[in-house]
């Protein structure tokens, strides 16, 4: 196995990470731009990428702008907006076929970075702001996106649980912002926010494929001409736990299945040396089909189709989710709490430890086959300030024993139980 070695530099006050490799048939590019989550900026920041993807100085009409992608052999382009720790992250991504598969196509890496650079730095402007029609269209579109969260009940319940759990912290905010703020945004105010965002936010650009640092750096310098005074780092604070009784929130809606979600607080994040033990805790609890939640809630009690846990390693929060018969609420809560208690007691078989280690190692090894996943893994280091390679993290996980998981469990608190149920009954 060849070690994964990025070449890194700073270009125009942005971090550039290049992974030269011949493994893929594509070039893959990702641009991360992050801002601390705050009521004031979250909605503006969310709207910016929607407006940017409408057109550029060179291709002001959306159709022509998108045709460029088709001409680059259907290059993939998109963006995501999500939370990592107390940051709102906007990620732009592109993947495009390597030139060798499409003879006569021209230098596709160069064209892709040009496309992304122009999209990010040369938007369509009018009267000192973004083009107003695009801003209005995308306000409507973003409003629909925010409102649509309720459609998928699994996702809705997960987000409501976090909102209730973190109601006094920025982490309660939805990464797409809130509808109330949307109305007041004007093409000018959004443009000002955009300029501020681009000149002050931490920016990381990743390029994976058959290229070199020098080549990528040249394109980035040319096509991302942004004036920045500094390139700040991320500063996620370690979590603290306020001791408080478990809160229970019940919400009613027209649903046929109840959605049970629970939020747990931990004192650990990706930056902590004990992070591998937290990964193990989550894996034993509910990360896999051999985990306690799947085995006990689904296989033994036959209460659910899905019962699992996942974590935001940068925030130090673990959430549990399951879909159950509404009448089985108490039964399911009890079984889940018994699993939390079992880990606290150290009631973990050697087999569970070995299986969880094998599954985590497999997941980490597998991510190396996907350029986007490789990038996302490396970005964890940027976000946390702690460098961990895949082999290092696997080795650390392999060293975790029962006592270490138990000691992590002793620092974990159940914070919130959220239940989405029907409108009938008590």
């Amino acid at each position: 196995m060849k070690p994964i070695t990025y070449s890194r530099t700073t270009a125009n006050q942005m971090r550039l990470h290049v992974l030269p490799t011949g493994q893929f048939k594509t070039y893959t590019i990702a641009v991360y731009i992050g801002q601390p989550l705050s009521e004031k900026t979250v909605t503006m920041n969310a709207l910016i990428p929607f407006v940017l993807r409408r057109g550029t100085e060179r291709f002001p009409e959306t159709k022509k702008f998108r045709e460029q992608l088709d001409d680059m052999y259907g290059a993939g382009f998109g963006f995501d907006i999500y939370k990592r720790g107390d940051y709102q992250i906007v990620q732009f991504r592109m993947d495009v076929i390597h030139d060798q598969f499409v003879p006569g196509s021209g230098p596709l890496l160069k064209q892709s970075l040009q496309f992304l650079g122009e999209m990010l730095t040369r938007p369509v402007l009018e009267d000192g702001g973004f083009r107003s029609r695009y801003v209005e269209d995308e306000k409507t579109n973003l409003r629909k996106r925010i409102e649509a969260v309720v459609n998928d009940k699994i996702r809705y319940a997960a987000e409501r649980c976090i909102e209730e759990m973190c109601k006094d912290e920025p982490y309660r905010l939805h990464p797409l912002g809130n509808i109330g703020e949307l109305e007041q945004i004007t093409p000018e105010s959004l443009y000002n926010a955009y300029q501020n965002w681009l000149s002050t936010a931490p920016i990381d650009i990743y390029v994976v494929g058959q290229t070199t640092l020098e080549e990528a750096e040249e394109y980035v310098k040319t096509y991302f001409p942004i004036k920045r005074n500094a390139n700040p780092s991320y500063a996620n604070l370690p979590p603290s736990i306020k001791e408080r009784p478990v809160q229970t929130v019940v919400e009613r809606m027209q649903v046929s299945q109840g959605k049970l979600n629970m939020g747990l607080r931990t004192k650990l994040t990706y930056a902590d040396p004990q992070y591998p033990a937290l990964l193990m805790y989550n894996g034993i609890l509910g990360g896999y089909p051999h985990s306690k939640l799947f085995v006990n809630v689904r296989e033994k009690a036959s209460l659910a189709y899905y019962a699992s846990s996942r974590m935001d390693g940068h925030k130090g929060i673990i959430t549990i989710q399951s879909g159950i018969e509404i009448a089985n609420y108490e039964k399911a809560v009890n079984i889940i709490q018994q699993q939390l208690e079992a880990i606290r007691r150290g009631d973990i078989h050697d087999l569970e430890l070995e299986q969880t280690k094998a599954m985590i190692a497999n997941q980490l090894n597998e991510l190396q086959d996907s350029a986007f996943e490789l990038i996302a893994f490396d970005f964890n280091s940027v976000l946390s300030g702690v460098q961990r390679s895949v082999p290092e993290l696997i080795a650390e996980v392999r060293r975790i024993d029962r006592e270490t998981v138990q000691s992590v469990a002793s620092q974990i608190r159940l914070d919130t139980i959220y239940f989405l149920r029907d409108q009938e009954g008590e």
Partner: protein
Amino acid sequence: MQRNVYDSVKETLYYEKLANGLDVYMLPKPGFQKTYATFATRYGSIDNHFQVEGGKEVRVPDGIAHFLEHKMFEEPEGDIFSTFASQGASANAFTSFDRTVYLFSATERIAENLTTLVNFVQNPYFTDANVEKEKGIIAQEIKMYQDHPDWRCYYGLIEAMYREHPVRIDIAGTVSSISQITKETLYECYRTFYHPGNMMLFVVGGVDPEEVFALIRENQEGKHFENQGAVRRFYPQEPPGVAMKKKVVHLPVSLPKCLFGFKETVNGLEGRELLELELGTKLMLEILYGQSSDYYQSLYDEHLISDQFGYDFQCSRDYAFSMIGGETRDPELLLSRVEAQFNEALEKGIGEADFERCKRKRIGAFLRMLNSPEAIANQFSNYQFKGCNLFDILPVYESLTLDRINSRLREHVKWEQFAVSIVTGDSV
């Protein structure tokens, strides 16, 4: 062992038909960490009425193929997920209209994991108790989908289109249909459709083909399978036209969801012709409703669609339909615009420039897909069971002509074959 080299995409596919009839395929991916294996049977939710040569004609409850898929994971010694976990493999399965696929991905202990995959699927273990237990789990799966507006809208459209063909039946069945399932019916379906002659194994990843073939050959030679006569599958004759023009479902949603499309008659088409039908129709829909089309942009400008608007085309030997749509503030207005757009396209035809641009786009999307072992594996058996080859996609796209796309447009857009599905929060 047969070796097929696809130069234009730099891939090599190995193939062998084993003595018991099992088709085994291997696609090496040098440099990749993971190996992804799928073990698939040509048996899905539409196969609810059949007869084995020399046997009785059988009808089985809706949702049984999917139920069987769940139950295969249980072995006398326990849950097979546990065995995979010990071997560091992530395992799963899915059931579609016409196939059931078992799979794992792993980066280590590939020989053991392959053996586990093949052995557990070839070792059914059903008891009255474990069949009963599964009913509770699958009932929750069904209820989860009932609350899901996108799923309801998707199924609503198929129900609106099809009157007779079992493609209209929910893959998981209903709480009531699965209550009729017994271990005896499960064994009967198992014996009928899990014969090696009805199955294929596909392995992709950083492993050596010789080793994979040797392992599977030896494994299969150690097992005995009774020779089975041909399986006849009965599908009712689907009448022309649609079952209903419009199906409306009420659920809490932020905006109405609206899917629409045309149902086509396929007449047992398979192989390269079926692939041409599929890719030609997808290209035609990309030209008309892709994100860089005039129609998409004009609907978007009118705020009639959001950026979640999309299209799909599904086809098999005896059913085929398009599915277009997404959320909309006004389903009726959207439908009237779409009708006018299709009629305009029929009248004016598709132009050369749009055709060339979208063809490049579809070719690029296919080539990018080849980076993903899981995407390759999941699509490979889909095409293979229809007598097509995944690696023919590139040459078929290259061979498509503008004339062909325009005739596809005229064949596909038949208003008497058009149906609509709406999920809305408004009560009428």
